[in-house]
């Protein structure tokens, strides 16, 4: 971790902090607060960190000494675990499958939801309130409730174990929240702007594509990140709709398989786990602002 900037933020309260905030500090002095936070941060990051270190040690090293021993004994690090997992253990194929599953499962629901959200916010039509109430009603319905009939429908249509099947399922599961969130954003666009565009003779469609969509990019980005993580990290929907065919296995399912078959082979599991985590972690650290917003907004998903 890099040193704090010269302004010395450790003792100088930022201007927004008033006396009210500072007096709590008198009781829980700054250093003890810092200590408690440090302990919590330590507790929260050690598990991931230990796994990360271990994924670069060979099987023998992992099994004979704890990962912490790398700090005080000379250790050889290797990327062999990753090579093995990506090739022999099918993680490479699963990684590609996860991308195939995730991208349309993010784009399709957002597109459909954005159209619907615009209509709910700015168009008048019979059934609007009823339809919107249905969207709200479906927000927290657990997707478990839908699995059995969808599965039967899929078996009938021969959609089981296909990417198409899982895209549609994720589209359905993500749609209520996407519509609700984008509605919340799109309905706050100032009325004057919308009316000005309509006076200029724009149809609803061009208003939507030229005005509403560009203005909604922050909300779309936030939801996209939420949906991306949700789909990428999902296990249940993948297990149910992609089945046991290893050809279409995604990373979460592949890792679950490895836990079952290689339960003690930590060199495989640690590297495998990191491969499943790498994309979400990159998104997390590079797009943290949107990430936080997406998580906050997406907190009610059913």
């Amino acid at each position: 971790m890099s040193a704090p900037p010269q302004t010395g933020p450790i003792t100088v309260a930022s201007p927004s902090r008033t006396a009210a905030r500072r007096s709590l500090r008198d009781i829980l002095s700054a250093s003890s607060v810092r200590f408690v936070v440090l302990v919590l941060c330590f507790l929260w990051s050690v598990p991931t960190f230990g796994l990360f270190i271990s994924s670069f040690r060979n099987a023998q090293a992992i099994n004979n000494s704890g990962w912490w021993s790398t700090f005080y004994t000379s250790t050889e690090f290797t990327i062999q675990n990753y090579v093995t997992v990506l090739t022999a253990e099918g993680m490479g194929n699963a990684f590609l499958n996860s991308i195939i599953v995730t991208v349309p499962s993010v784009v399709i629901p957002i597109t459909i939801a954005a159209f619907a959200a615009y209509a709910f916010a700015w168009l008048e039509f019979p059934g609007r309130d009823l339809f919107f109430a249905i969207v709200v009603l479906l927000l927290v319905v657990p997707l478990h409730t839908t699995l059995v009939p969808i599965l039967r429908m899929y078996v009938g249509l021969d959609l089981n174990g296909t990417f198409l099947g899982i895209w549609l399922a994720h589209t359905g599961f993500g749609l209520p929240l996407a519509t609700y969130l984008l509605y919340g954003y799109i309905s706050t666009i100032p009325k004057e702007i919308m009316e000005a565009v309509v006076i200029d003779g724009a149809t609803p469609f061009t208003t939507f594509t030229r005005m509403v969509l560009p203005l909604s990019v922050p909300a779309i980005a936030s939801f996209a990140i939420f949906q991306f993580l949700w789909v990428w990290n999902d296990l249940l929907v993948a297990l149910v709709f992609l089945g046991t065919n290893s050809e279409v296995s995604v990373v979460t399912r592949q890792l679950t398989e490895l836990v079952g078959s290689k339960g003690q082979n930590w060199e495989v599991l640690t590297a495998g786990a990191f491969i499943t985590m790498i994309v979400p972690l990159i998104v997390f650290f590079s797009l943290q602002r949107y990430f936080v917003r997406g998580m906050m907004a997406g907190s009610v998903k059913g």
Partner: protein
Amino acid sequence: MQQQLQQPEKGSFLSWFTTGVGRVIVALIVPIITFAILWQSFVFMRDTEAPKLLIALVALVVGVVGVWALYIGTNFFIEQLPGRVRDALRPYLFVGPAMVILGVFLIYPAIGTIYLSFFDARSESFIGVQNYAFAFVDSAMLIALRNNLLWIILVTGFTVSVGLLVAVLVDRLSQWEEAAAKSLIFMPMAISAVGASVIWSFMYFAKPITQPQIGTLNAIITGFGGEPVLFLLDKAINNFALIAIQIWLLTGFCMVILSSAVKGVPDELLEAARIDGANEFQVFFRILVPSIMPTILTVSTTVFIIVLKTFDIVYVMTNGRRDTEVVANRMFNELFRFGNSGHASALAVVLLLAVLPIIYWNLRSLREQRS
């Protein structure tokens, strides 16, 4: 609307479309056509045996370009229609596809599940409430229900209180320290439950006492002279070991949301209480907590919904063995291992019943917003 009321006598075919009934029927036709086209392209893709990278490419094309092409195409068609029909149809171009998908993937299946929950294992004969009797009487199910309750109470309690504690504490730190601390505690949100399960399996791993421990927790325990603990096998603690993983995953989420609520409490409010002689604990419990209560409730509800549906962690770590079963995992096993869709459906309905109060509450607040 008003125009329509002024000219009700117009009886031509086209104006029929603008009546309420006509609009609803048309509203149904448009999305059906949309869906059919979408469907055909999907079916085509299903049947190809193309190499994976090509499928990935086609997936992107269908996902991005395909959906847009459908909207643009349908819009073009609607714009060709005479004025009043066009105006009546337009909104349904926007909401139609969404409503059809919600109907096919949520409403119809939810109703179907409720229906199936009254039928036997193979959905052949009606057996009344026997599946529900199983759900609430069977001894394994009672353990699952108990565990779900344990999960809900402990995870909600811990994540919300630790999240609030961290939110209040980091508020006293400098900006970069706050950002760094939040990042570290929030990071597990990016990790899948499966990944977290592997991370914690490694933490919990136990070796015989004669060998050096490689699992962090048992290394600490034996380092202090204790016996290695079998975290996942010991029935006294295995549920708590699993629950700890969920707490680890969700605390950061609670912290981030509560943190923005804490920052929203006006300083004057806290200061006024202090001038009146309140000590810091009174300020915290009597002023700060009540003023962010709505946020605390929202966060708790969210955690409740997530935990209620807990599946991945249990499925990966123990698959419900040694008294660690939960409802969602049992439902999955009823469906795929025991082939009992009656039981599985009833368990799904139990989960739905648990969120009914929240659905009611959501709808009520929607109505309040509208009025």
